[in-house]
């Protein structure tokens, strides 16, 4: 093959038709208040792990809801389940339970 100096870039668009959203729906069923999330990011701002590493709970939540689980396993290892995020959530979501549920559903917890 000739050396073109480039390859075909993969689109970064989220394809909800091909993503498997069944685990995400299971999590949503068990923690239904997650539907109230307004994605304000308070959980991430107060996160102890987030201060020291690249862990971003708001991002994890978004990825899981879209059915994109690839990074989640590795990232959620950083969560210490301290529950500070739950104290600051303006919507009263039990974010600690969400983290635990994601770990149990997607990871070997």
């Amino acid at each position: 093959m000739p050396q073109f100096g480039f390859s075909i870039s993969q689109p970064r668009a989220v394809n909800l038709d091909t993503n498997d959203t069944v685990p995400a729906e299971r999590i949503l069923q068990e923690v239904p208040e997650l539907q109230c999330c307004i994605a304000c990011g308070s959980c991430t701002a107060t996160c102890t792990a987030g201060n020291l590493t690249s862990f971003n709970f708001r991002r994890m939540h978004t990825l899981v809801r879209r059915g994109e689980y690839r990074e989640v396993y590795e990232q959620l290892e950083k969560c210490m389940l301290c529950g500070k995020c739950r104290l600051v959530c303006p919507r009263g979501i039990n974010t600690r339970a969400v983290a635990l549920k994601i770990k149990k559903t997607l990871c070997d917890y």
Partner: protein
Amino acid sequence: MKRNTWQEYQKEVADDNYYYLRSCIRQNFFPGSEKAFVRILREELGRNLYDDPAHTSCTGIGYHSDVVLHDTIMTVVARQFALMKESGFENAAVSCITSFGIYTEVLETWREFPEVEARIRELLYKATGRELYKPRNLAHTSDIIFHHREAIRQRAKHLLVNHRTGEPLRGVEHIGCHYAKIFPKEGIGGVEFPYVLAGMIEAWGGQVVDYPERRHCCGFGFRNYLVQANRGYSIANSQKKLESMAPYKPDFILTNCPGCGMFLDKWQYTIAEIEGTTYGQDGKGIPVLTYEELAGLVLGYDPWDLGLQMHQVDVEPLLDKLGVEYDPAAKYLMPNGRYIGRPEPATVNMGVE
């Protein structure tokens, strides 16, 4: 009360007396297309068209690549219009979609900011001694072919019908982004319902294929292509379109932009090289035509006079469906018999050459 909503989607196209503004890149990509346009207008339709050797590139590619300044390109455009006026013409016929977008943008800028127009008037006079003039009618050449589509049908030798089965041929139309996405009112059908190419296919007996990514950009995007490392984004766009249209089994792709025609054609070869994927009938690729080439085929012109041998994807399957007679041995020969070389087949890497 009669609704006038559709009036906003119409465009006035001059019927005669065109000043032809050629494209710099089309001469290389599709060398027969502009020649075919001149022949159709003059010989078939009996229209007056002036092909001025004095006009230059619009410098649009340099402008979109941040190489040419806004004032510079406006002065270049002003010179083209001044030449047109000096030649006694008022209707500009623009061959390239990039140029068409540039001319439209410049005219809109002058309308919106009269002080800019005054400045360019002065710059033009200082640089060339010419007077600024604004055309009475500005049309892309696909608008002009669309305008005369019924007259072309009346002279048709081959309609867009499979001559073996009698079924209409299935055509995918792809409109260049700068045709109507920047200034929707300048395009026939606007940005929502662009009809310029679809109207030609329907008028000449074909069937227009609708598919999910019909309005997606081909991926040229200037910077996307001009920087080698970015070309992966360019080809990804074409691939998205080709993947989307392939299940609808189109017989050909019709484009009105030099970039779109080039990329949808040549990226088929590159995708075959990189991924081993080919599209179209028997994996031989989907032929890509310009509207002049399609009009030329409809009018019975020789396909090698139209420059169809310069395409990466072989057009023979389409010619066979249309019932066009051609000499396979003459495909890569100049009129004087000299061999011009041949491009890599678009079916490379598939073992189905």
